[in-house]
């Protein structure tokens, strides 16, 4: 080995470690799936699922986190391996949600219902429908990838890091499954803490500022929602039951106020313009796994909240305020896209592109028609896959070069050929090229948006042009043109097998959804139909409804 510089010994050591971890991961890749498949077949062969699926996928990671806390700090590989095995096991255990989900009904499935605090009417109630089920699966999948991508990049406080990761997983899944507002709120807030730590402890140089900003933004929004929740509680016969609320018709003025209260919490999370400024900071400073969870799942919760609460609970307000929401969405699409053109930092650019892409999502949702909403939900999944993958990619190269400045790159395609191919696929998915998942989502959203309002549809479509401009600009400056001297002479290797395996599942999903989206669209069909009916039929005065029935 040539002595290239003062830190060449460090590199040797790192490479050695990498080689070892590759080997371990390879073993894992063969052993664990074999076990998984056996286990999976076991699940399929029995008529009834023998375990409460939702409780399991929520509490296994939380129990896993506690288990990791008990491990010896020195035994790093045991910590990592436990975390990996737990996250994979959790993904496997969540599989019945995919295989046994009844796509023909809009009802809640896999329902679990127990009294929790009877005196307050609080229940421990879980369930999924076509709107939430995909996010449970996506959370379980992304957590595994977060573990593998952090394998060598997280070097201190390893124990706490992996425990936090599992805690986030459990609470995230819980948020998507809760059918009780009290439980929902607890998990919603609980999730903030490990995320705050993830940014604040393992983040970049400006991490404290970013973490506090993230925390305060979301907290302020959530407090308004808390007020809303309490009001709902008293107006639903002292109950936190979401399903019951979905059947209740609240007075119009109250609906409007509650809509805004919940909107405050969700708009910050999405994030919608103009409360988006925490996102670039949080993303830039967060460690790779943090960015992936943030982009992949956390910001989806805002849009999920609109679907789960604002629309079915306050249908009249939703109908009345939808135009305003669509305008905000289109502003986010264009604003987020144009501002990307002025970015110099890889992660910041992708973060702002999230603002634009989430603008598409909310536009689709508030178009209030099947194409818009299904496109919106699919685009939430797509954005989780693609932006998650892009952040993973940035993490992978950052681990080598320790810079996120676009100007420090150039000609990377020569240095990292395999990496550049992966990055290209995700770039194309991000710009919505047909054949990738991004296209299906964006097309359905623009179709839905155009149906609801021609002007909004057309304006949203301009976001697609700008999207191509900034992503291709990014790709060119990082991967094309002459190789930047800063990338040479360090012996940077292309992606190793661990990294390839991290990105591969997402790559497959990009094409799967692009070529055969019906696998995923069919999940939401019934639930979305039901939701639209709820929004459209609400608010017709009782008398009018009776007259209609009489006429029939």
């Amino acid at each position, binding site marked *: 080995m040539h002595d290239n510089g003062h830190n060449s010994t460090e590199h040797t050591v790192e490479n050695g470690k990498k080689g070892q971890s590759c080997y371990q991961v390879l073993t894992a890749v063969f052993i664990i799936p074999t076990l998984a498949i056996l286990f999976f077949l076991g699940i399929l062969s029995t008529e009834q699922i023998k375990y409460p699926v939702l409780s399991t996928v929520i509490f296994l990671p939380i129990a896993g986190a506690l288990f990791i806390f008990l491990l010896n700090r020195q035994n790093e590989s045991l910590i990592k391996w436990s975390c990996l095995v737990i996250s994979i096991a959790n993904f496997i255990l969540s599989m019945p949600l995919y295989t046994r989900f009844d796509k023909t009904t809009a009802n809640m499935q896999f329902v679990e219902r127990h009294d929790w605090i009877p005196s307050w009417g609080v229940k421990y109630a879980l369930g999924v429908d076509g709107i939430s089920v995909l996010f449970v699966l996506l959370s379980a999948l992304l957590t595994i990838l977060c573990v593998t991508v952090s394998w060598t990049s997280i070097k201190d406080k390893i124990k706490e890091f992996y425990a936090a990761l599992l805690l986030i997983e459990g609470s995230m899944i819980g948020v998507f499954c809760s059918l009780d507002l009290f439980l929902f709120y607890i998990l919603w807030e609980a999730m903030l803490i490990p995320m705050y730590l993830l940014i604040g402890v393992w983040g970049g140089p400006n991490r404290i500022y970013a973490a506090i900003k993230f925390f*305060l*933004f979301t907290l302020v929004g959530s407090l308004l929602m808390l007020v809303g929740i309490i*009001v709902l509680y*008293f*107006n639903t016969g002292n109950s936190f039951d979401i399903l019951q609320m979905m059947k209740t018709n609240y007075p119009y003025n109250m609906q409007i106020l509650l809509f805004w209260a919940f909107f405050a919490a969700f708009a910050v999370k999405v994030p919608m313009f*103009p409360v988006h*400024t925490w996102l670039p900071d949080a993303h830039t400073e967060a460690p790779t796994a943090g960015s992936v969870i943030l982009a992949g799942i956390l910001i989806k919760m805002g849009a999920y909240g609109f679907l789960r609460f604002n629309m079915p609970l306050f249908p009249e307000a939703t109908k009345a305020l939808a135009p305003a929401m669509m305008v905000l969405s289109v502003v986010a699409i264009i*604003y987020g896209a*144009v*501002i*990307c*053109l*002025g*970015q110099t930092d890889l992660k910041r650019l992708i973060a702002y592109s999230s603002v634009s892409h989430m603008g598409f999502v909310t536009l689709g949702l508030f178009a209030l*028609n*099947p*194409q818009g909403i*299904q*496109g919106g939900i699919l685009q939430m999944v797509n954005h989780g896959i693609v932006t998650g993958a892009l952040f993973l990619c940035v993490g992978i190269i950052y681990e080598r070069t320790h810079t996120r400045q676009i100007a420090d790159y150039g*000609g990377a*395609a*020569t240095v990292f*050929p395999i990496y550049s*191919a992966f990055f290209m696929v995700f770039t*194309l998915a991000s710009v919505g*090229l*047909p*054949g990738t998942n991004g*296209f*299906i989502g964006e*097309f*359905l959203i*623009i*179709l839905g948006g*155009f*149906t609801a309002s021609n002007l909004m*549809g*057309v304006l949203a*479509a*301009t976001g*697609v*042009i*700008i999207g*191509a*401009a900034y992503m*291709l*600009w990014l790709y*060119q400056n990082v*991967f*094309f*043109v*002459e*190789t930047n001297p800063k990338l040479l002479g360090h012996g940077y290797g292309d992606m190793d097998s661990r990294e390839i395996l991290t990105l591969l599942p997402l790559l497959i999903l990009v094409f799967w959804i692009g*070529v*055969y*989206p*019906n696998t995923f*669209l*069919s999940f939401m069909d019934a639930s979305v*139909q039901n939701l639209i009916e709820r929004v459209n039929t609400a608010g017709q005065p009782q008398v009018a409804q009776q007259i209609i029935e009489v006429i029939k």
Partner: protein
Amino acid sequence: MEKYVVLIPLLPLIGFFINILLGRAVTKDKAHSVAILAVFGSFLFSLMAFYEVAQGNTLNYDVYSWVVCGNFKVTIGFLIDQLTVIMLIVVTTVSLLVHIYSVGYMHGDPGYYRFFSYLNLFTFSMLMLVTSNNLLQLYLGWEAVGLCSYFLIGYWYQKKTAADAGKKAFIVNRFGDFGFGIGVIVIFLTIGSIQYSDLFSKVGMLQGQTVYIMGYNVDLITLIALLLFCGAVGKSAQIPLHVWLPDAMEGPTPVSALIHAATMVTAGVFMVARFNPLFNLSEVAMNVVAITGALTALFAATIALVQNDIKRIIAYSTCSQLGYMFLACGVGAYGAGIFHLYTHAFFKALLFLGAGSVMHAMAGELNIQKMGGLRKYMPVTYWTFLIASLSIAGIPGLAGFFSKDEILWLAYNGGTTGKIVWIMGTIVAGLTAFYSFRIIWLTFFGKFRGTHEQEHHLHESPKVMTIPLILLAIGAVAAGWIGIPTVLGGGNWIGHFFEPVLGHPHVHAGHDEEWMVMGISVAVALTGIFVSILFYVWKPDIPKTLGAKYKAIYTTLWNKYYIDELYDFIIVRPVKWTASCLLVDITDTKIIEGIVNGIPKGIAAFGEKIRKLQTGYLQHYAISMAIGLFVILTLVLIAAGK
């Protein structure tokens, strides 16, 4: 036919996957064999499909449901009819020859396998585009060919100009596709389906319907047709979205021949012809198509007159010839347009591959002012290039003559617009002959004007490159013989072949007028050639004197009417400025962040004041607690009471 039609696009896709996945480790410098085999398979199946369609069997076949969402449903499926099979023949033939030629041209390139996998992917995308039976799959092919074009233009990605050109092509095309996409959506909302079969059967119902846009009542069909045409303008490099095509010449020359001459850029023409039932219902849209085509033909031809880069001249020539095809579609002569598309594929691919052969000999030199006398060194290239030039100039008997003549004749028959575009088209015929032969004289005749080193290396290209040239030259001569008009004793077989799909415009004028139209265009073409001999062989100082005398015109043409500069000024810079100065520095940092960070500051200031309430006396706290509790309880009770 349904048994093998799927294989036509699928084989190149398989070839792509084999080479892109295994290229670095396994296929390496043998990558071409996989790629060529795949395209050859598609070529054979295309011939079979052609045979079956010629027997009168057409096919509309759905493979699977692609997207189902609410009442929106679209399939992956194939429509094989007269129009499709001609496109299949064009695409697979030219693609096959370009693949073979590339074996020689790209020999020894470090990204050899990558090049062939992109070519395969392109072939797949183009075949998906032409065989589609619905608008969304068309859009898939449409964007995918654009992507391949992006990859291949920027193939030598280390070169900044190449990477820039690829990006420019992609983004400019997105502008066109923006309109196209909206068009698809409007079709769905008005017809309720985007399958061709539903569209064509129901489009008549839209006649007379209008939509209200910004204070105007716009005819619905016109709106849809023009939106779709936006896509065609982008893809086929028509005014005002033509700017990407000349820059696209940064790609390897076989790519220019395949993508930027014979196939991808003609997709716009194909699309307009495919939707002829729609376009036929809107006179306004038809006129827009015809005028855009005629203007581009004229505009691009004038630029081509003065350029010195051999590939750029041919690129402008492509723009111009595509203009002819749109001109034809715009006067309802879709069959003639597609016929020209088909002959053009042969002679234009030949011109590009010939130029590639010249570049190969000249170590990459592109400036025709630095060439000369190459006839002696590379006879095959010279003869094939000459044949292509004669064909594009419209010399009787060659392919280009028949198709161009058909277009001009049908334009002449097409009312006022037809007469106008006929005159423009005839002028362009003269310009075309001039600039095509300008290349011939400057490149192959006279004395060599390059460096000694270049002169020393001059050689004919290897067989693997010259054989495709010869085959294409045969096409450039004979391809037109399937459309010999009746006045010349032919049966215009191609015109009748297309009739079930594309119809045939009514011809009012008689045979003598047809002879006149033909005579004029031949005379004009010969004049063009004559002037080029005068300028570049007999009196070589004329161009310089003219250039000096009409300096304003010359520099305008030389700078391509300053369109690139204009776009830079009105689009690129304002957007960049908005992004980096306005949004990043002002809106986000100052305004939004200012407010957001201002609130905590305000709270802090407020807290300073409030701190004074914290007196430290227990009784004060007790009183405030009591008051607080009272207020909360009251509120709760009131709320519960409701």
